[in-house]
């Protein structure tokens, strides 16, 4: 097992553990913090794939910006007032069963995929470097890039409609 593989397993188990903690924690603020840890683990994965830009963006936008937004939202609502609705055990079991089904299907499919041999692209793959990504983004994928500005505009309008009195 090489260093990459060891790192991969460490990061994966960190990500999975924190993801489970997000769901399990009683306090939503704790969940947010576990989520940040997940993002860092995912960023580590991106780095293993040599996708630097994604790794950094993941930290800036998700771990930085969106988590701040989440924390603000949590501070907007009165956490004390919210009584955790008592879901019946049956519902919980069904939820777990469904999740496990999806997991099973995904594992079954992915284990047969031929991509398993190419574990990570640490060597050779350099499309994730910032300048290469820029070249692709502003030429090949220019149309989706421009269209995404409409998405941002509608989000801005939404923020004003919802947030402003």
């Amino acid at each position, binding site marked *: 097992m090489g260093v990459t593989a060891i790192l991969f397993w460490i990061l994966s188990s960190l990500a999975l553990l924190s993801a489970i903690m997000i769901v399990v924690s009683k*306090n939503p*603020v*704790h969940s947010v*913090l576990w989520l*940040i840890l997940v993002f860092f683990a995912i960023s580590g994965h991106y780095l293993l794939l040599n996708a*630097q*830009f994604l790794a*950094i963006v993941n*930290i*800036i936008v998700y*771990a*930085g*910006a969106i*988590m*701040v937004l989440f*924390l*603000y939202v949590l*501070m907007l609502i009165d956490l004390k007032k919210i009584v955790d609705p008592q879901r019946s055990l049956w519902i919980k079991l069904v939820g777990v069963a469904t999740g496990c089904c999806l997991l099973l299907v995904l594992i079954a499919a992915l284990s047969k995929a031929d991509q398993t041999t190419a574990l990570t692209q640490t060597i050779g793959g350099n499309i994730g*470097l*910032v300048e290469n990504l820029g070249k692709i983004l502003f030429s090949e994928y220019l149309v989706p890039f421009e269209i995404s500005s409409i998405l941002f505009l509608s989000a801005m309008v939404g923020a004003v409609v919802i947030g402003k009195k």
Partner: protein
Amino acid sequence: MPSLENIANFIHNWLYTTFNATVALLLEFTIVAILVIGLFSVLGLVLIFMERKVSAYMQVRLGPNRVGPKGIFQTVADTLKLMVKEGMTPNNADKFLFNLAPFIVMTAAMLILAPLAFAKNFQIWDINIGVLFVTAISSVSVIGILMAGWASNNKYSLLGAMRSGAQIVSYELSAGLSIITIVVLSESLKISTIIESQANGWWIFKGHIPAIIAFVIFIIAVTAETNRAPFDLAEAESELTAGFHTEYSGMKFALFFLAEYVNIFIVCVIGATLFLGGWMPLHFGTNTTFNEMMDYIPSSLWLFGKTFFLIFVIMWFRWTFPRLRIDQLLNLEWKYLLPISMINLLLATAMAILGWHF
């Protein structure tokens, strides 16, 4: 000429000739570790002392003058005092988050030190996305602040943290945009390349008006990002006691305090690196005599000189401008700095495409 580069080279070569590769690597790690810790303690002490003395002289007083000659050991004494103080955790605080918050803030501050170049070829970690890395890690420290405010379960803390969060994230935008202006001009995110691109003149001179505008905006934005006066309404003593770290005491408080000063140091180093040429000496065109004279000054002195000049400017602000209200603060960023820096960036880009800069 004993420059930092030569010393580092010497140590490196000596290590690798004396020991085998792995041991040498480990030893190097240890040396770097000791250096970083040393830098930290020295930085904290020096900056706090400097702050006190600068404020004192601005207000025509003497400042600390009892402990040691001219009071230079005052901060050492203070640090020792903070070390042996009791670190309390309030009863109704969220214990875990309360203790984690200073950790995060401090860790973020110390991680940013890694890609900074302190002298010619003297850098812990020269990564190809250096500037981006700095932006990324600095965007995380706000989480620590919000966490501290929320976990304390104190109204002052929470209010301070909310204000601080809003302020930091807002000013991050224009700070980022002015950083990108320099990235556009030097076409690299790597700190060493950015510095080398200024060999024939610093960006603030070469970059025409866009670089100057970017520099001004950068200084304003980082002053706000480090919660310094006149943007210190997150910890406005007269209204919010101490803002998000009201409940902190002892070492945990010291960590927040230290992180604040380390952050000031870091942003000033970045400002010096991006706009003022980092460790590059001041060069004037083809005036070789002058240039060689300047080269004679060690590169580390150049960087620290520029950095401490910027730190002094930021401290100067504190005693010059009155504190802003939160609405003025957000207006300044959203209505003025953000659009200006955005248009400024486009201007710089157009200029760079046309090749108008030197």
